[in-house]
């Protein structure tokens, strides 16, 4: 037996048996993730007061979204909250054109959509969200953006529907 044989093109076993696959079918793994005090406050503030709250490191002074307990670099606990945004600057974008399965529901994602990285005013890290502009030609790093708030807000990141370009 040649242990270096290239079997990549096989559709049947050496003896002629069909090579099978098995499908998992539908199956959801359910989770209920605790948001903890930091993300809970962040989400509740968006939901109730339409504002973005970030945390500030007592040592290096950087302001982070998502807010969090620990500044990784300083290993310092953060308890100072700072309001940032609501407007910000476009830092990066991807127009997603190739559909793929949304792991949240097992369905194909609706494409195209524009995923963005935005630096909210007063914040040192970037926030991942959406922009309603579907054409790269109209997007440019450095553009000013503002949030469009959802009417019905439930304490998720979708309490902002998307960010839109501020026209001069």
């Amino acid at each position, binding site marked *: 037996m040649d242990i270096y044989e290239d079997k990549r093109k096989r559709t049947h076993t050496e003896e002629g048996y069909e090579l099978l696959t*098995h499908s*998992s079918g539908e*199956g959801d*793994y*359910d*989770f*209920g*993730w*605790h*948001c*903890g*005090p*930091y*993300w809970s406050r962040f989400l509740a503030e968006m939901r109730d007061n339409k504002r973005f709250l970030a945390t500030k490191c007592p040592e290096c002074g950087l302001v982070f979204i998502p807010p*969090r*307990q*620990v*500044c*990784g*670099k300083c*290993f310092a*606990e953060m308890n100072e909250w700072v309001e940032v945004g609501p407007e910000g600057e476009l830092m990066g974008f991807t127009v997603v054109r190739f559909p793929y399965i949304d792991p949240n529901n097992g369905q194909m994602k609706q494409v195209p959509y524009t995923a963005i990285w935005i630096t909210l005013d007063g914040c040192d890290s970037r926030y991942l969200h959406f922009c309603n502009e579907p054409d790269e030609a109209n997007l440019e790093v450095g553009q000013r953006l503002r949030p469009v708030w959802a009417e019905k807000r439930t304490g998720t990141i979708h309490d902002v529907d998307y960010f839109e370009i501020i026209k001069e």
Partner: protein
Amino acid sequence: MIYMEKIAIIGVGQTKYEQGKPDTFAELIYEVTAAALEDAGITKDDLDDIVSISSDFWDGRTISSMAICDAIAGYGKDITTVEGDGTFGAVYGLARTLSGKFDVTLVAAHHKGTESNMNAITNTSFDPLVERKLGLDAVSSAALQARRYMSKYGLTQEQFALTSVKNHGNAMRNPLAMLPMDISVEDVMNSRMVADPLKVLDCSPLTDGAAAIILATEEAAKKLTDPAKCVWIKGVGHCSDAYRPGDRDLADTEALKRAANRAYEMAGISDPLSEIDVAEVYDAFSYMEPLWLEGLGICGEGTGCKSTEEGLFNFDGELPVNTSGGRLSANPVQVAGLAELAECVLQLRGEAGEHQVDGAKTALAQGINGMCGQSHCVWVLGK
């Protein structure tokens, strides 16, 4: 003879074990990382190596270790992730500390058993091409092992229940344990049948929590820490059995024997029952404790239940087992093995409070990976 340079555990940290803890994974890890650093009397700058332990399945997130890189003090350091029980993660931490490349290694694990569906998660441990389709999970497969153990040696459910009574009773001494209970064999027998012969009180609970330990070379330990805080690693071994439940005799403990023998050989232990003063054994289900005690050579094959009945493993017995309350009283998967090691460290330092075993000099911890204890890891620690 396997020679190992001296490595100490210089710090431990644990959360309280509870259901429905509000913290995120990172917040749990920060709590135990900070606690272990404080316990060792060092700062994050003294650490040069990090091993995190987590499970993408339980966390509902692939690359689950990404959630905790900041909270585990990983910035600017060598860091890696083991998926499995804490005892195995600690083995890798030990190997890294022994490699000569690092002085001080933090090993930490988090687990939130209450945020997902345990049966669905443990079902993914079975081969999707064969056993998974039948719907097996941790509980139903354990029941198959329990029955095999009973029929091989003529054991009874009441005998298994004794371990549950003992360990829930021990938990009443441990403020971190989740299910301190004063119960009787009848209570266990009358609890709801889950998968015959296992009843609710034969099974460990879903648990949230985290734990951390800090390993150091002898030189670093001497430089950084109060000698009273140092507990020394005497021996360690891990070993896996075959995968499919049908490949194995489920009441056979050969893999555990090999893991234990390696640890004993390193530690110079020839009679574990008399030489070990306190043991933390992986009692995810009541029957596992006597079965693993047999594999550990602490009692003979088929005699684990009899020795339990005789009180050998009681808090005031010859070899107190699961003084923490065991996994039956709190089972944060992955974390469990580190919690065992932390309990051993507290015992050997004499810091175990109400659950302190007087004069404990040598302690044993044993963890498992996979279903029905396919893979085992055994640690021997000493003062």
